């Protein structure tokens, strides 16, 4: 160990830490040290001070790199996906920045002393939590069952990084996170492998006269992650009487694995028995009330029993995450963080039930011949389809979007073991499978190649002839239309939205005028990368790593496909409105009541891609102010130049030409057919793993996402260079 005076600034044993400040060791560390001093059994361990954190971030130039990431774009303008991306980049900086040699050695030395027996738990201990009277569970990271000093050191880095976790960034105001000044303490403790564990809320937030105790078999992690259902007791605080007991289904428990925890089937003998006896329940409840007295306020206590001895794992003031009214989506966002187990169950449901049901529902609607419906029946079909669309949109938000977290979970594991230079390298492992929009584009290319090879066919199509095109081409055309629709709305624009193949043919002709642009073949590289990733794991862990990759690929695929499926449902609603509008155009009336008629006639302008407001068109900034260089997120590597095509409405897609740069609010599923023509993609909506970025990456197109107001700051025809490595768009001008 280097200078002992120096290391004592960084490391303080829990037994000596009870007189420290929260500013130095954080709220959780101080609470544990005080419990220990109070004679309550607490696992042995030590605190890593906030000074160690500050030394780490200052010594490697890390602080400034973090600040650059955090100031890339105003936080208020970021979507949750962008916040996650920022958090991942920062997490990666913490993983890859070298630790000062003296600090690393000091931690290793302490871990190798006989008093420090592993395995270990590494917990966050934020100084801001207690200072602001707010301790929000789950905003920062903790890791259990770390077997050696390498794992502990990685855990420490990740706990530090979690000061800037996506969750912490969302609640930055409430937790008093100040980017320039905040710091993070860490507690490293011996892991107590309890046979039974749980939590106590000394005051039930919904009934202040009672406490709530929850208990599971095995480690507490199963309960905290929501993977193991707990038995729950309510106890009257005044007289200690149990007022309620909700037994759990008791099927599984969390056990320590080689590293971390693993869910195992509970032995039959335990399934019928609550994890706590009455005496043990009273012991837990009584101890929690003592802690409430000690810390002068209601407590949220984690505990475990090992060999009959009760250990307190942590105690913190009860707080709940504040809500910000109906529009506060942050709680929903927090619900996106799912465990591996949870995501596996979700995948089965999505792939086994939801997607097939969605496809079937769209097929059923498409098979209805609306032209034979009476006006009244058409109106009813429209209403039904509206309700069906609403139902699936809800499913989309509640089930499909959370499943997207599978990619993120994999990304973290990948970065932890591979430490790549690019924190988004993992994305290249995800896109192998079949994607609906790629299939649609592949079939467009089949038609384009037929046209390329047949001058006569090309000429007939150019002249607007739709008959005698040759059996093979007609078969392809009809096959495409029955699988994907004729794309007439997205191509010809809402004004001329008549169902027919004209728009589709125009697109095929444009494609045929240029060499084919097919998705990049990444398979070869991918195999090598996948093998290098899996080689980092042994035995059972390798099986789990492969499962996780598989899950992430499903998650990636679905992120694209779900939009297509939803688009098909939506198209059926519009089909009903279109039919009504067609009749009205011919007859000048509809045999339904006035309000129904108005709704039917009003509906179509919302069809397909819907720009925010029609007034956006041409709403350029004051003529004398122009963007010269714009920044966003580098979401697809590569660099390309070309004239822009700003998509403000579907009509703009009609004019899309090969070599143009697609500029849009968000790449909608029905727009991806222009990807083979585009030179690059620029999107207002931000994120590395969003639809447009995924498609751009498949075609090897440079892509920049999250550029504020980009559809207003650029104009169609601007010559731009898109740097997809750095996330920069440069607008070329003749003058300086």
């Amino acid at each position, binding site marked *: 160990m280097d200078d002992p005076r120096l290391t004592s600034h960084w490391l303080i044993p829990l037994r000596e830490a009870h007189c420290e400040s929260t500013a130095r060791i954080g709220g959780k560390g101080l609470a544990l040290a005080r419990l220990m001093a109070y004679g309550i059994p607490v696992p042995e361990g030590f605190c890593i001070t906030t000074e160690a954190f500050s030394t780490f971030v200052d010594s490697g130039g890390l602080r400034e790199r973090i*600040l650059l990431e955090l*100031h890339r774009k105003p936080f208020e303008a970021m979507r949750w996906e962008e916040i996650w991306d920022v958090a991942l980049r920062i997490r990666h900086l913490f993983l890859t920045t070298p630790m000062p040699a003296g600090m690393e050695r000091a931690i290793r030395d302490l871990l190798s002393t006989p008093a420090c027996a592993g395995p270990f738990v590494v917990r966050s201990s934020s100084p801001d939590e207690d200072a602001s009277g707010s301790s929000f569970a789950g905003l920062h990271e903790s890791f259990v069952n770390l077997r050696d000093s390498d794992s502990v050191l990685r855990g420490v880095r990740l706990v530090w990084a979690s000061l800037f976790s996506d969750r912490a960034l969302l609640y930055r105001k409430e937790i008093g996170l100040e980017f320039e000044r905040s710091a993070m303490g860490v507690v490293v403790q011996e892991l107590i492998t309890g046979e039974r564990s749980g939590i106590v809320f000394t005051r039930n937030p919904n009934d202040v006269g009672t406490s709530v105790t929850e208990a599971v078999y095995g480690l507490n992690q199963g309960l905290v992650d929501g993977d193991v259902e707990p038995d729950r007791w309510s106890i009257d605080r005044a007289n200690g009487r149990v007022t309620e007991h909700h037994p759990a289904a008791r099927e599984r428990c969390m056990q320590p694995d080689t590293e971390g925890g693993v869910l195992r089937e509970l032995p039959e003998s335990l399934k019928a028995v609550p994890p706590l006896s009455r005496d043990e329940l009273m012991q837990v409840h009584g101890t929690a009330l003592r802690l409430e007295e000690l810390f002068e306020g209601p407590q949220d206590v984690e505990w475990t029993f090992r060999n009959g001895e009760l250990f307190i794992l942590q105690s913190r003031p009860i707080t709940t995450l504040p809500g910000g009214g109906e529009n506060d989506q942050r709680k929903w966002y927090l619900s996106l963080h799912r465990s591996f187990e949870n995501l596996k169950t979700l995948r089965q449901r999505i792939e086994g039930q939801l997607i097939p049901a969605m496809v079937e529902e769209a097929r059923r609607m498409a098979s209805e011949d609306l032209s034979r419906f009476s006006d009244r029946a058409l109106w009813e079909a429209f209403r039904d389809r509206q309700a069906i669309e609403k139902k699936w949109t809800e499913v989309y938000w509640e089930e499909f979007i959370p499943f997207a977290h599978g990619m993120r979970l994999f990304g973290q594991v990948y970065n932890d073991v591979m430490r790549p230079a690019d924190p988004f390298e993992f994305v290249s492992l995800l896109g192998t499978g079949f994607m609906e929009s790629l299939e649609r584009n592949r079939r467009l290319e089949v038609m384009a190649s037929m046209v390329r090879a047949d001058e006569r066919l090309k000429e007939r199509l150019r002249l607007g002839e739709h008959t005698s095109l040759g059996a093979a081409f007609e078969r392809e055309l009809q096959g495409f239309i029955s699988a994907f629709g004729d794309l007439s709305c997205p191509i010809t624009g809402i004004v001329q939205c008549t169902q027919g193949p004209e728009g589709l043919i125009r697109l095929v002709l444009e494609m045929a005028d240029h060499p084919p642009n097919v998705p990049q073949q990444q398979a070869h590289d991918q195999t090598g990368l996948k093998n290098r990733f899996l080689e980092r794991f042994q035995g059972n862990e390798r099986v789990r790593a492969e499962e996780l990759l598989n899950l992430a690929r499903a998650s990636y695929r679905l992120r694209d496909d779900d939009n297509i499926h939803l688009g098909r449902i939506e198209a059926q609603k519009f089909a009903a409105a279109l039919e009504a509008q067609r009749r009205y155009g011919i007859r000048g009336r509809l045999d339904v009541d006035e309000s129904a008629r108005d709704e039917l006639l009003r509906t179509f302008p919302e069809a397909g891609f819907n720009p925010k407001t029609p007034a956006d068109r041409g709403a350029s900034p*004051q003529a*004398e102010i122009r963007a*010269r260089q714009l*920044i966003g997120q580098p979401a697809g590597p590569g660099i390309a130049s070309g004239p822009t095509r700003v998509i403000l409405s579907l009509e703009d897609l009609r004019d899309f030409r090969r070599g143009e740069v697609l500029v849009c609010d968000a790449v909608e599923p029905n727009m991806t057919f222009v990807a083979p023509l585009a030179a690059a993609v620029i999107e207002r909506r931000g994120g590395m793993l969003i639809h447009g970025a995924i498609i751009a990456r498949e075609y090897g197109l440079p892509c920049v996402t999250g550029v504020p107001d980009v559809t207003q*700051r650029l104009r169609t025809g601007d010559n731009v260079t898109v740097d997809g490595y750095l996330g920069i768009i440069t607008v070329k001008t003749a003058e300086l």
Partner: protein
Amino acid sequence: MPLIQNDQTVVSDVEVLLTQQSLAVLSTHHEGQPYASLVAFAVSDDLRVMLFATSRSTRKYANLAGDSRVAMLVDSRSHRAEDIHEAMAVTAVGVAQEAVEAELFSWRSIYLERHPHLESFVSAPSCALVKVLVHRYLLVRRFQEVSEWTIRA
């Protein structure tokens, strides 16, 4: 037509920089050889003219006689690590002209209001007060976001 958020702040950020800072880097050239000098500047209320003073014996003055096109850089660096994301810089591109007798009084009073301690310098017979007619401003924020504000065609 309302300005979008980002553009609304371009004008105000340029104004803040030009009124809060007092030094600018002036770029001139001699037969293609670039040359940079630090000058004390002032700006007109409408932000259309930037002013600086120089002795007629200086290299920058000689350079301007050869080519009146100039660029001036004004920034908010504070020489701390935070500069890289916090600092803003504006480059003014335009044409330099020496203020002539008839307009000298009014330009000089604008300049001296900003730099009163330079009164004797500006009053010296060898000193030229140079006005830069700004054609456009290029504002750099957030490390590399660049906006252009055209003042004169």
